[in-house]
C-alpha cells in the first residue's frame, strides 16, 4: 500500500527526517512511536505533501507520489487526520464533513459524499445531533470524531493519523482506538503516530520506533510491547523493574 524509501525532509535548513524507510501493507494498522520532537508529525506531513520531501521517495499503491500537490495525494486515496484535529472551528460539523469530501464533489460524486456522511453519522451518532453546531464548540472527543469523519469522507484507502489521543480523557482515547480498529476491519489501512505507546501498540499490527529523525526499531506490536528498551523508554516502566531483575 505505502512504501517509503530513504525519505528526508525538514523545514528550510533544519533537517528533521534523516532517511526514513518503511512500508505499510494493505489492511494493517502500523504505528510509529517516539518521543516529542522525534519527527513523527513531520513524517506524516511529508507523506501528505504538506511538507516537501528533500530526498527519497514515497510510493502509494505502486505510484510515485513524492512531491505532488496535497490535493492529488487526497485523490490518490490517502488522507491525514492532523495533529490537534485542525477543524474549521467557525463552520458547522456538517460543513466540516462536506469539505472533507471536497475532491469527491469536484468529481461529481455528490451522491457518494451524501452516503459517506450518513455512514459517518452511524459511526459517530453524536455528530448527527451536533450537525448544525460550530465545530469549535464541540468537546475534544467530539472534535476528534469530526476530524476522523472528515478524513473518511473521500473514502480513502490509507488513513494517516497524527496523535489522535492528544488531549483526550483515557475513556475517550479507548473509544477512538476502538474506531480505528473497526476501520481496519472494514478494510482500511492505517498509519498512526502516537505518544501513547501502550494504547496504540495494543491495537496495532506492527510498529516502528522513531528517534531524532530515524527509525531505530521495527517489529510486531506484541514484540515491541515486550521489548525492554521500548518498555523503558516509551511505556513508562520504572527503571528499577529492569535493574532489579
Amino acid at each position, binding site marked *: 500500500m505505502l512504501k517509503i524509501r530513504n525519505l528526508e525532509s525538514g523545514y528550510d535548513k533544519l533537517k528533521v527526517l534523516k532517511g526514513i524507510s518503511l512500508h505499510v501493507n494493505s489492511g494493517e494498522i502500523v504505528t510509529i512511536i517516539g518521543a516529542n520532537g522525534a519527527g513523527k508529525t513531520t513524517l506524516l506531513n511529508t507523506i501528505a505533501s*504538506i511538507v516537501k520531501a528533500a530526498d527519497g521517495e514515497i510510493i502509494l499503491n505502486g505510484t510515485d507520489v513524492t512531491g505532488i500537490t496535497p490535493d492529488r495525494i487526497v485523490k490518490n486515496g490517502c488522507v491525514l487526520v*492532523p495533529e490537534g484535529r485542525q477543524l474549521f472551528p467557525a463552520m458547522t460539523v456538517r460543513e466540516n464533513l462536506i*469539505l472533507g469530501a471536497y475532491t469527491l464533489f469536484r468529481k461529481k460524486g455528490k451522491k457518494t459524499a451524501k452516503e459517506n456522511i450518513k455512514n459517518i453519522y452511524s459511526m459517530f451518532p453524536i455528530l448527527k445531533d451536533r450537525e448544525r453546531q460550530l465545530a469549535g464548540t464541540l468537546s475534544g472527543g467530539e472534535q476528534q470524531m469530526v476530524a476522523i469523519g472528515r478524513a473518511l469522507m473521500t473514502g480513502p484507502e490509507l488513513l494517516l493519523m497524527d496523535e489522535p489521543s492528544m488531549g483526550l480523557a483515557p475513556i475517550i482515547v479507548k473509544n477512538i482506538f476502538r474506531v480505528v480498529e473497526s476501520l481496519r476491519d472494514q478494510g482500511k489501512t492505517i498509519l498512526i503516530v502516537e505518544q501513547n505507546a501502550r494504547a496504540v501498540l495494543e491495537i496495532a499490527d506492527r510498529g516502528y520506533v522513531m528517534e531524532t529523525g530515524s527509525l531505530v526499531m521495527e517489529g510486531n506490536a506484541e514484540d515491541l510491547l515486550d521489548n525492554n528498551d521500548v518498555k523503558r523508554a516509551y511505556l513508562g516502566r520504572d527503571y528499577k523493574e529492569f535493574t532489579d531483575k
Partner: protein
Amino acid sequence: MSGEQTLQYIFAGITVGSIYAFVAIGYNIIYNATGIINFAQGEFVMLGGMIAYTFSGFMPLLPAVVLAVLITSAVGSVIESVFIRRMRKTSVLGMIVVTIGISILLREAALYIWDEQIRALRFFTGSEISSVSILGARISPQVLWILGITTIIVAGLFLFFKFTLTGQAMRACSENLRAAKLCGIRTDSMVNLSFMLSAGIGALGGCVVSPLTQTHYAMGTDLAIKGFIVAILGGLGNAIAAVAAGLLLGLIESFSISILPMAYKDVISIIILLIILVVKPSGIFGSRQASSMKDY
C-alpha cells in the same frame, strides 16, 4: 434641520457609505482568504470606472459594465499569480507593502493608459438632472441603483459563502489553510479566486458610483483609506458588518458636513479609526474572541 433635509443627508450618507462598503467588502474577501490587507483595492474601483467609461463610448452601458468587471477580475487574478503567489513566503506586513506597490503601479498605469482627466459614466437611468422623490427628499435614481446593487452583492456573497462548495472552501482556507490543503482543496486557486472576486466587486462598485462621484486615475488612494477604516470599523473579515460600518461612516461624514466645515470630513473618519483601534480593535461587530485567534 428640516425633515426633508435630514432625509437628504441620510441618502447622501448612504450613497457614500455604499462606495466605502464596496471597497471594504473587497478587503474582507482577500483578508479572509490570505490574511493580507490588499491596499490596491481602491484601484480596482478606479479601473472598473475607467474601463467601463472607455467601452461605453462604443457600446451600450450594460455590456460595458460587464466587460469592465470581467477585465478588472482578470487584472486581480494576474496580480495574484504574478506578485502575491510568488511572495507568499514573506511576512504579512511585507505582503501589505507589496500591495501598496501594486496600487501605485496600477495608478501610474491608469495615468499612462488614460490621462489625468476626470470622467463619469452615463447615468444608468435618466440623467444628472432627473430625480425621484422619496418622502419629500429628492434623490438621483443612481442612488437607488447603488443601493440595489449593494444589496444584491451582499446577499449574493452571503449565499455564496454559506451554501456553495466553492464558497465553503474559501472560508475553510481562511479558517485553517493547512487543514484546507489536507481536505484536497487547492488553496492557491482559492486565493486567486478571492482576488478575482474582490477585484470584480470593486470594479462593479466603481461603475455604479461613477455617474455620481466621477472617476479619476488617482481616486483609489482615498477609497483605500476610507475602505480600510470601514473594514476595521466593522471588524475585519466580516462582509456584512462592512456594509453596516460603511453606511455608518457615510452617514457620520454626511451629517458632519452639516455641522463642521467640509474639510473636516476626512479628519472625522480618521479620528473614528483611531478610537476604534484603541477601544475595540476587533471592530464594532467583530467578536473579541475571534480576533484574538487571528495572527497579524
